[in-house]
Protein backbone atom coordinates (compact mmCIF):
# COMPACT_ATOMS: atom_id res chain seq x y z
CA UNK A 1 0.00 0.00 0.00
CA UNK A 2 1.02 3.49 -0.75
CA UNK A 3 2.84 6.15 1.13
CA UNK A 4 2.25 9.06 -1.15
CA UNK A 5 0.77 12.52 -1.30
CA UNK A 6 1.51 16.17 -1.85
CA UNK A 7 4.06 18.16 0.13
CA UNK A 8 1.48 20.88 0.59
CA UNK A 9 -0.44 18.48 2.82
CA UNK A 10 2.31 16.36 4.27
CA UNK A 11 5.66 18.08 4.54
CA UNK A 12 9.21 16.79 4.10
CA UNK A 13 9.69 17.22 7.83
CA UNK A 14 6.72 14.96 8.51
CA UNK A 15 7.95 12.41 5.99
CA UNK A 16 11.42 12.26 7.48
CA UNK A 17 9.96 11.91 10.94
CA UNK A 18 7.91 8.97 9.71
CA UNK A 19 10.84 7.33 7.93
CA UNK A 20 12.99 7.81 11.01
CA UNK A 21 10.47 6.44 13.52
CA UNK A 22 9.34 3.56 11.32
CA UNK A 23 12.98 2.81 10.36
CA UNK A 24 12.02 2.48 6.75
CA UNK A 25 14.09 1.12 3.91
CA UNK A 26 13.42 2.29 0.37
CA UNK A 27 13.45 5.39 -1.77
CA UNK A 28 11.48 8.59 -1.43
CA UNK A 29 10.76 10.15 -4.80
CA UNK A 30 9.77 13.80 -4.80
CA UNK A 31 8.57 15.46 -7.98
CA UNK A 32 8.94 19.19 -7.50
CA UNK A 33 8.04 22.00 -9.85
CA UNK A 34 11.61 22.20 -11.19
CA UNK A 35 13.31 18.94 -10.49
CA UNK A 36 12.90 15.42 -9.26
CA UNK A 37 14.81 14.20 -6.22
CA UNK A 38 15.37 10.65 -5.05
CA UNK A 39 16.41 9.98 -1.48
CA UNK A 40 17.17 6.45 -0.34
CA UNK A 41 17.07 5.16 3.20
CA UNK A 42 18.20 2.03 4.94
CA UNK A 43 16.52 1.22 8.23
CA UNK A 44 15.56 4.83 8.77
CA UNK A 45 18.97 6.25 7.94
CA UNK A 46 19.91 8.35 4.93
CA UNK A 47 21.81 6.20 2.44
CA UNK A 48 21.84 8.04 -0.85
CA UNK A 49 20.40 11.01 -2.73
CA UNK A 50 20.18 12.07 -6.34
CA UNK A 51 18.88 15.39 -7.59
CA UNK A 52 17.49 15.60 -11.12
CA UNK A 53 20.02 14.90 -13.83
CA UNK A 54 22.88 16.32 -11.78
CA UNK A 55 26.22 14.58 -12.23
CA UNK A 56 26.29 12.27 -9.26
CA UNK A 57 29.50 10.45 -10.06
CA UNK A 58 32.04 10.00 -7.31
CA UNK A 59 34.73 11.84 -9.29
CA UNK A 60 32.57 14.92 -9.61
CA UNK A 61 31.47 14.87 -5.99
CA UNK A 62 35.08 14.56 -4.81
CA UNK A 63 36.17 17.31 -7.14
CA UNK A 64 33.39 19.61 -5.89
CA UNK A 65 34.46 18.79 -2.34
CA UNK A 66 37.99 19.86 -3.31
CA UNK A 67 39.38 16.41 -2.61
CA UNK A 68 40.70 16.18 -6.14
CA UNK A 69 42.60 18.79 -8.12
CA UNK A 70 41.44 19.91 -11.54
CA UNK A 71 44.12 17.89 -13.39
CA UNK A 72 43.34 14.81 -11.29
CA UNK A 73 39.66 15.28 -12.03
CA UNK A 74 40.24 15.59 -15.79
CA UNK A 75 42.54 12.60 -15.85
CA UNK A 76 40.12 10.42 -13.93
CA UNK A 77 37.19 11.54 -16.06
CA UNK A 78 39.09 10.48 -19.17
CA UNK A 79 40.58 7.24 -17.96
CA UNK A 80 38.11 5.93 -15.40
CA UNK A 81 35.03 6.59 -17.50
CA UNK A 82 33.73 3.05 -17.34
CA UNK A 83 34.50 2.35 -13.73
CA UNK A 84 31.76 2.14 -11.19
CA UNK A 85 31.91 4.42 -8.15
CA UNK A 86 32.77 1.47 -5.95
CA UNK A 87 35.66 0.39 -8.17
CA UNK A 88 36.91 3.92 -8.48
CA UNK A 89 36.70 4.51 -4.73
CA UNK A 90 38.77 1.41 -4.12
CA UNK A 91 41.31 2.48 -6.70
CA UNK A 92 41.64 5.95 -5.19
CA UNK A 93 42.10 4.58 -1.70
CA UNK A 94 44.66 2.00 -2.88
CA UNK A 95 46.55 4.63 -4.82
CA UNK A 96 46.68 6.77 -1.68
CA UNK A 97 44.89 9.63 -3.38
CA UNK A 98 42.35 9.85 -0.63
CA UNK A 99 41.24 7.84 2.37
CA UNK A 100 37.96 6.10 2.92
CA UNK A 101 36.74 8.58 5.55
CA UNK A 102 37.17 11.46 3.13
CA UNK A 103 35.17 9.66 0.48
CA UNK A 104 32.34 8.89 2.86
CA UNK A 105 32.36 12.40 4.33
CA UNK A 106 32.23 13.98 0.87
CA UNK A 107 29.34 11.76 -0.19
CA UNK A 108 27.55 12.43 3.08
CA UNK A 109 27.84 16.21 2.64
CA UNK A 110 26.66 15.93 -0.92
CA UNK A 111 23.58 13.87 -0.01
CA UNK A 112 22.72 16.02 3.00
CA UNK A 113 22.92 19.15 0.84
CA UNK A 114 20.39 17.66 -1.57
CA UNK A 115 18.13 16.75 1.31
CA UNK A 116 18.40 20.19 2.89
CA UNK A 117 17.29 21.67 -0.38
CA UNK A 118 14.21 19.45 -0.24
CA UNK A 119 13.18 20.93 3.08
CA UNK A 120 12.57 24.26 1.36
CA UNK A 121 10.06 22.77 -1.03
CA UNK A 122 6.44 23.55 -0.32
CA UNK A 123 5.02 21.97 -3.43
CA UNK A 124 5.52 18.60 -5.07
CA UNK A 125 4.26 15.04 -5.22
CA UNK A 126 5.99 12.40 -3.20
CA UNK A 127 5.86 8.65 -3.04
CA UNK A 128 7.87 6.13 -1.09
CA UNK A 129 8.96 2.94 -2.84
CA UNK A 130 10.06 0.20 -0.47
CA UNK A 131 11.45 -1.89 -3.32
CA UNK A 132 13.59 0.80 -4.83
CA UNK A 133 17.17 0.85 -3.55
CA UNK A 134 20.21 2.88 -4.63
CA UNK A 135 21.97 1.61 -7.77
CA UNK A 136 24.24 -1.35 -6.99
CA UNK A 137 27.43 0.39 -8.10
CA UNK A 138 26.95 3.44 -5.91
CA UNK A 139 28.60 3.96 -2.54
CA UNK A 140 26.05 4.56 0.19
CA UNK A 141 26.32 6.19 3.60
CA UNK A 142 24.49 5.87 6.92
CA UNK A 143 23.39 9.19 8.36
CA UNK A 144 21.02 9.56 11.30
CA UNK A 145 17.98 11.60 10.35
CA UNK A 146 17.49 13.40 13.66
CA UNK A 147 19.89 16.24 13.00
CA UNK A 148 18.66 16.63 9.44
CA UNK A 149 15.10 16.89 10.74
CA UNK A 150 15.99 19.42 13.42
CA UNK A 151 17.79 21.52 10.84
CA UNK A 152 14.83 21.28 8.47
CA UNK A 153 12.23 21.94 11.15
CA UNK A 154 14.04 25.13 12.12
CA UNK A 155 12.98 26.52 8.77
CA UNK A 156 9.30 26.50 9.69
CA UNK A 157 8.45 29.98 10.91
CA UNK A 158 4.77 30.33 10.30
CA UNK A 159 2.94 30.84 13.54
CA UNK A 160 -0.30 29.54 12.12
CA UNK A 161 1.23 26.25 11.13
CA UNK A 162 3.07 25.97 14.44
CA UNK A 163 -0.19 26.55 16.27
CA UNK A 164 -1.71 23.69 14.35
CA UNK A 165 1.20 21.45 15.27
CA UNK A 166 1.20 22.39 18.93
CA UNK A 167 -2.27 23.68 19.72
CA UNK A 168 -1.89 23.59 23.46
CA UNK A 169 0.95 25.05 25.51
CA UNK A 170 -0.43 23.67 28.76
CA UNK A 171 0.88 20.27 27.93
CA UNK A 172 4.15 18.77 29.13
CA UNK A 173 7.06 17.10 27.36
CA UNK A 174 8.97 13.96 28.05
CA UNK A 175 11.97 12.39 26.39
CA UNK A 176 11.01 9.65 23.96
CA UNK A 177 12.08 6.27 25.28
CA UNK A 178 13.16 4.96 21.94
CA UNK A 179 16.53 3.53 21.04
CA UNK A 180 18.55 6.09 19.13
CA UNK A 181 16.78 9.06 20.67
CA UNK A 182 19.85 9.92 22.67
CA UNK A 183 20.12 13.61 23.31
CA UNK A 184 23.91 13.54 23.01
CA UNK A 185 23.69 12.72 19.32
CA UNK A 186 21.83 15.91 18.51
CA UNK A 187 23.28 19.15 17.22
CA UNK A 188 21.22 21.53 19.29
CA UNK A 189 21.36 25.31 19.41
CA UNK A 190 21.79 27.21 22.68
CA UNK A 191 18.08 27.99 22.79
CA UNK A 192 17.21 24.37 22.21
CA UNK A 193 19.51 23.28 25.03
CA UNK A 194 17.79 25.82 27.28
CA UNK A 195 14.48 24.13 26.62
CA UNK A 196 15.88 20.62 26.91
CA UNK A 197 17.06 21.40 30.44
CA UNK A 198 13.48 21.86 31.56
CA UNK A 199 11.95 18.84 29.86
CA UNK A 200 10.09 16.91 32.47
CA UNK A 201 6.49 15.66 32.66
CA UNK A 202 5.94 18.14 35.49
CA UNK A 203 6.69 21.24 33.40
CA UNK A 204 4.19 22.48 30.84
CA UNK A 205 5.48 24.09 27.64
CA UNK A 206 4.10 27.38 28.89
CA UNK A 207 6.09 27.09 32.11
CA UNK A 208 9.25 26.27 30.16
CA UNK A 209 8.67 29.35 27.99
CA UNK A 210 8.36 31.47 31.10
CA UNK A 211 11.48 29.99 32.69
CA UNK A 212 13.53 30.51 29.54
CA UNK A 213 11.93 33.89 28.78
CA UNK A 214 10.78 32.80 25.34
CA UNK A 215 7.81 34.01 23.36
CA UNK A 216 5.06 31.60 22.34
CA UNK A 217 6.43 31.58 18.82
CA UNK A 218 9.98 30.83 19.93
CA UNK A 219 9.01 27.98 22.20
CA UNK A 220 6.67 26.51 19.62
CA UNK A 221 9.44 26.48 17.03
CA UNK A 222 11.82 24.67 19.34
CA UNK A 223 9.29 22.15 20.59
CA UNK A 224 8.23 21.50 17.01
CA UNK A 225 11.80 20.68 15.97
CA UNK A 226 12.35 18.38 18.96
CA UNK A 227 9.02 16.66 18.33
CA UNK A 228 9.69 16.09 14.66
CA UNK A 229 13.10 14.64 15.40
CA UNK A 230 11.38 12.13 17.67
CA UNK A 231 13.38 13.32 20.65
CA UNK A 232 10.42 14.29 22.79
CA UNK A 233 6.75 13.42 23.13
CA UNK A 234 3.79 15.40 24.37
CA UNK A 235 2.27 14.20 27.65
CA UNK A 236 -0.45 15.31 29.97
CA UNK A 237 1.32 17.29 32.70
CA UNK A 238 1.92 15.28 35.83
CA UNK A 239 -0.32 16.25 38.70
CA UNK A 240 -2.70 18.17 36.48
CA UNK A 241 -6.36 17.33 37.04
CA UNK A 242 -7.97 15.39 34.24
CA UNK A 243 -10.62 17.43 32.51
CA UNK A 244 -13.83 17.41 34.51
CA UNK A 245 -16.42 15.01 33.20
CA UNK A 246 -19.29 16.81 31.55
CA UNK A 247 -22.45 17.35 33.57
CA UNK A 248 -24.55 14.23 33.58
CA UNK A 249 -28.10 14.01 32.47
CA UNK A 250 -30.05 11.85 34.89
CA UNK A 251 -31.14 8.46 33.69
CA UNK A 252 -29.37 8.69 30.35
CA UNK A 253 -25.74 8.19 31.01
CA UNK A 254 -24.40 4.89 32.19
CA UNK A 255 -21.12 6.33 33.45
CA UNK A 256 -23.08 8.24 36.05
CA UNK A 257 -24.72 5.13 37.36
CA UNK A 258 -23.55 4.28 40.79
CA UNK A 259 -23.52 0.56 40.26
CA UNK A 260 -20.45 -0.75 38.44
CA UNK A 261 -22.10 -4.15 37.95
CA UNK A 262 -24.92 -2.50 36.06
CA UNK A 263 -22.46 -0.53 33.95
CA UNK A 264 -20.60 -3.65 32.99
CA UNK A 265 -23.78 -5.47 32.20
CA UNK A 266 -24.90 -2.60 30.00
CA UNK A 267 -21.66 -2.67 28.02
CA UNK A 268 -21.90 -6.44 27.70
CA UNK A 269 -25.43 -6.14 26.35
CA UNK A 270 -24.15 -3.68 23.76
CA UNK A 271 -21.28 -6.01 22.84
CA UNK A 272 -23.61 -8.96 22.37
CA UNK A 273 -26.00 -6.93 20.30
CA UNK A 274 -23.33 -5.59 17.97
CA UNK A 275 -21.79 -9.03 17.54
CA UNK A 276 -25.16 -10.28 16.38
CA UNK A 277 -25.72 -7.53 13.82
Amino acid at each position, binding site marked *: MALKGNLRDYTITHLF*RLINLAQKTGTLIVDGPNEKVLVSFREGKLAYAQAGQEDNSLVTILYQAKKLTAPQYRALKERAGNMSDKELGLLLVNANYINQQDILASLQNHFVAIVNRLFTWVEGFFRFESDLLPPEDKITVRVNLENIIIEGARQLHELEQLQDEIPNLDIALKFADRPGANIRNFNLSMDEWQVVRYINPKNTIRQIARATKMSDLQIRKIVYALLQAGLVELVRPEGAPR*PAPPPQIAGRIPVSQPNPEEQRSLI*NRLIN*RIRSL
Partner: protein
Amino acid sequence: MQTVKMVVTGPFNAGKTEFIRSVSEIDVVSTERKISTESERVKETTTVAMDFGRITVDEDLVLYLFGTPGQKRFDFMWEILSEGMLGFVVMVDSARPETFREARSILETFRAYAPTPYVVAANKQDREDAWEIDDMRIALRLDPKIKLLPCVATEKEMVKNVLLELLYSILADMESKGGG
Protein backbone atom coordinates in the same frame (compact mmCIF):
# COMPACT_ATOMS: atom_id res chain seq x y z
CA MET B 1 -36.07 2.86 28.42
CA GLN B 2 -32.45 3.82 28.56
CA THR B 3 -30.52 5.44 25.72
CA VAL B 4 -26.78 5.61 25.41
CA LYS B 5 -24.68 7.20 22.74
CA MET B 6 -21.38 6.99 20.99
CA VAL B 7 -19.98 9.71 18.80
CA VAL B 8 -18.37 9.24 15.40
CA THR B 9 -16.13 12.15 14.58
CA GLY B 10 -13.39 13.03 12.11
CA PRO B 11 -12.67 15.36 9.22
CA PHE B 12 -15.14 16.04 6.44
CA ASN B 13 -15.45 13.17 3.97
CA ALA B 14 -13.70 10.67 6.27
CA GLY B 15 -16.67 8.31 6.04
CA LYS B 16 -18.65 9.06 9.20
CA THR B 17 -22.04 8.95 7.53
CA GLU B 18 -21.16 5.76 5.70
CA PHE B 19 -19.92 4.17 8.93
CA ILE B 20 -23.13 4.91 10.80
CA ARG B 21 -25.26 3.86 7.84
CA SER B 22 -23.62 0.42 7.78
CA VAL B 23 -24.94 -0.57 11.20
CA SER B 24 -27.94 1.64 11.77
CA GLU B 25 -31.41 0.13 11.75
CA ILE B 26 -32.89 3.43 10.64
CA ASP B 27 -32.06 5.36 7.51
CA VAL B 28 -29.27 7.74 8.21
CA VAL B 29 -30.19 11.06 6.81
CA SER B 30 -27.85 13.92 7.16
CA THR B 31 -30.28 16.09 8.98
CA GLU B 32 -30.02 19.71 8.02
CA ARG B 33 -31.02 21.64 11.06
CA LYS B 34 -31.24 25.31 11.80
CA ILE B 35 -29.72 26.03 15.13
CA SER B 36 -28.89 29.17 16.99
CA THR B 37 -27.24 29.62 20.32
CA GLU B 38 -28.27 31.99 23.04
CA SER B 39 -24.84 33.51 23.10
CA GLU B 40 -25.17 34.71 19.57
CA ARG B 41 -26.11 38.36 19.73
CA VAL B 42 -27.22 38.66 16.18
CA LYS B 43 -30.26 36.60 15.40
CA GLU B 44 -28.43 34.34 13.08
CA THR B 45 -28.91 30.73 12.34
CA THR B 46 -26.33 28.23 11.26
CA THR B 47 -27.06 25.20 9.20
CA VAL B 48 -25.57 22.09 10.63
CA ALA B 49 -25.61 18.65 9.15
CA MET B 50 -25.69 15.95 11.75
CA ASP B 51 -26.11 12.25 11.16
CA PHE B 52 -27.49 9.82 13.56
CA GLY B 53 -28.13 6.13 13.56
CA ARG B 54 -29.86 3.79 15.98
CA ILE B 55 -29.26 0.27 17.20
CA THR B 56 -31.93 -1.22 19.45
CA VAL B 57 -30.31 -3.54 21.97
CA ASP B 58 -33.41 -4.82 23.76
CA GLU B 59 -36.68 -3.46 25.11
CA ASP B 60 -34.85 -1.36 27.65
CA LEU B 61 -31.78 -0.16 25.84
CA VAL B 62 -31.09 1.81 22.68
CA LEU B 63 -27.72 2.89 21.34
CA TYR B 64 -27.44 6.05 19.28
CA LEU B 65 -24.53 6.81 17.02
CA PHE B 66 -24.00 10.48 16.34
CA GLY B 67 -21.86 11.78 13.53
CA THR B 68 -20.34 15.18 14.05
CA PRO B 69 -20.09 17.87 11.49
CA GLY B 70 -16.41 17.91 10.65
CA GLN B 71 -15.82 21.62 10.42
CA LYS B 72 -13.99 23.38 13.19
CA ARG B 73 -16.57 26.12 13.26
CA PHE B 74 -19.00 23.69 14.80
CA ASP B 75 -16.82 23.17 17.82
CA PHE B 76 -19.63 24.17 20.12
CA MET B 77 -21.74 21.37 18.70
CA TRP B 78 -19.11 18.87 19.65
CA GLU B 79 -19.29 19.88 23.24
CA ILE B 80 -23.01 19.25 23.29
CA LEU B 81 -22.65 15.99 21.41
CA SER B 82 -19.89 14.69 23.63
CA GLU B 83 -21.95 15.14 26.78
CA GLY B 84 -22.49 11.79 28.36
CA MET B 85 -21.15 9.70 25.50
CA LEU B 86 -19.85 6.24 26.27
CA GLY B 87 -16.91 6.70 23.97
CA PHE B 88 -16.04 7.94 20.53
CA VAL B 89 -14.61 6.87 17.20
CA VAL B 90 -12.28 9.14 15.23
CA MET B 91 -12.57 8.39 11.53
CA VAL B 92 -9.64 9.18 9.29
CA ASP B 93 -9.48 8.84 5.52
CA SER B 94 -6.35 6.68 5.08
CA ALA B 95 -5.81 7.94 1.55
CA ARG B 96 -5.79 11.63 2.40
CA PRO B 97 -2.73 12.56 4.45
CA GLU B 98 -3.72 16.19 4.17
CA THR B 99 -6.49 15.50 6.67
CA PHE B 100 -4.32 13.75 9.28
CA ARG B 101 -3.46 16.95 11.07
CA GLU B 102 -7.07 17.98 11.32
CA ALA B 103 -8.00 14.51 12.55
CA ARG B 104 -5.44 14.83 15.30
CA SER B 105 -6.74 18.21 16.28
CA ILE B 106 -10.35 16.92 16.38
CA LEU B 107 -9.18 14.01 18.50
CA GLU B 108 -7.46 16.32 20.96
CA THR B 109 -10.52 18.52 21.18
CA PHE B 110 -12.82 15.63 21.95
CA ARG B 111 -10.44 14.18 24.45
CA ALA B 112 -10.51 17.48 26.28
CA TYR B 113 -14.30 17.52 26.39
CA ALA B 114 -14.64 14.07 27.83
CA PRO B 115 -12.15 11.62 29.29
CA THR B 116 -13.98 8.68 27.76
CA PRO B 117 -12.30 5.86 25.85
CA TYR B 118 -11.92 6.21 22.10
CA VAL B 119 -10.54 4.36 19.11
CA VAL B 120 -9.28 5.60 15.77
CA ALA B 121 -10.56 4.04 12.56
CA ALA B 122 -8.22 4.13 9.55
CA ASN B 123 -11.00 4.24 7.01
CA LYS B 124 -11.02 3.56 3.27
CA GLN B 125 -8.39 0.87 3.63
CA ASP B 126 -9.84 -0.62 0.45
CA ARG B 127 -8.43 2.24 -1.57
CA GLU B 128 -5.27 1.57 -3.47
CA ASP B 129 -3.61 4.75 -2.21
CA ALA B 130 -4.48 4.11 1.45
CA TRP B 131 -1.61 4.53 3.88
CA GLU B 132 -0.53 1.57 5.96
CA ILE B 133 -1.71 1.35 9.55
CA ASP B 134 1.80 1.57 11.03
CA ASP B 135 2.59 4.68 9.02
CA MET B 136 -0.69 6.26 10.03
CA ARG B 137 -0.02 5.62 13.68
CA ILE B 138 3.18 7.62 13.43
CA ALA B 139 1.65 10.33 11.27
CA LEU B 140 -1.26 10.73 13.66
CA ARG B 141 1.06 10.62 16.68
CA LEU B 142 -1.10 8.05 18.38
CA ASP B 143 -0.12 6.72 21.74
CA PRO B 144 0.68 2.99 21.48
CA LYS B 145 -2.16 2.36 23.93
CA ILE B 146 -4.76 3.77 21.56
CA LYS B 147 -6.30 1.32 19.14
CA LEU B 148 -5.93 2.20 15.46
CA LEU B 149 -8.23 -0.09 13.50
CA PRO B 150 -8.37 -0.75 9.78
CA CYS B 151 -11.80 0.08 8.42
CA VAL B 152 -13.89 0.12 5.30
CA ALA B 153 -17.03 1.96 6.28
CA THR B 154 -19.14 0.21 3.70
CA GLU B 155 -18.25 -3.20 5.12
CA LYS B 156 -20.50 -3.98 8.02
CA GLU B 157 -18.14 -6.50 9.61
CA MET B 158 -15.34 -3.97 9.81
CA VAL B 159 -17.62 -1.34 11.26
CA LYS B 160 -18.82 -3.85 13.84
CA ASN B 161 -15.23 -4.61 14.71
CA VAL B 162 -14.47 -0.93 15.33
CA LEU B 163 -17.51 -0.57 17.58
CA LEU B 164 -16.67 -3.77 19.44
CA GLU B 165 -13.07 -2.68 20.02
CA LEU B 166 -14.38 0.58 21.41
CA LEU B 167 -16.71 -1.30 23.74
CA TYR B 168 -13.86 -3.56 24.88
CA SER B 169 -11.85 -0.44 25.66
CA ILE B 170 -14.77 0.97 27.63
CA LEU B 171 -15.00 -2.27 29.58
CA ALA B 172 -11.25 -2.28 30.24
CA ASP B 173 -11.48 1.33 31.36
CA MET B 174 -14.16 0.39 33.90
CA GLU B 175 -12.05 -2.47 35.21
CA SER B 176 -8.99 -0.26 35.55
CA LYS B 177 -10.97 2.19 37.65
CA GLY B 178 -11.18 -0.48 40.29
CA GLY B 179 -14.50 -1.91 39.25
CA GLY B 180 -16.19 1.47 39.52
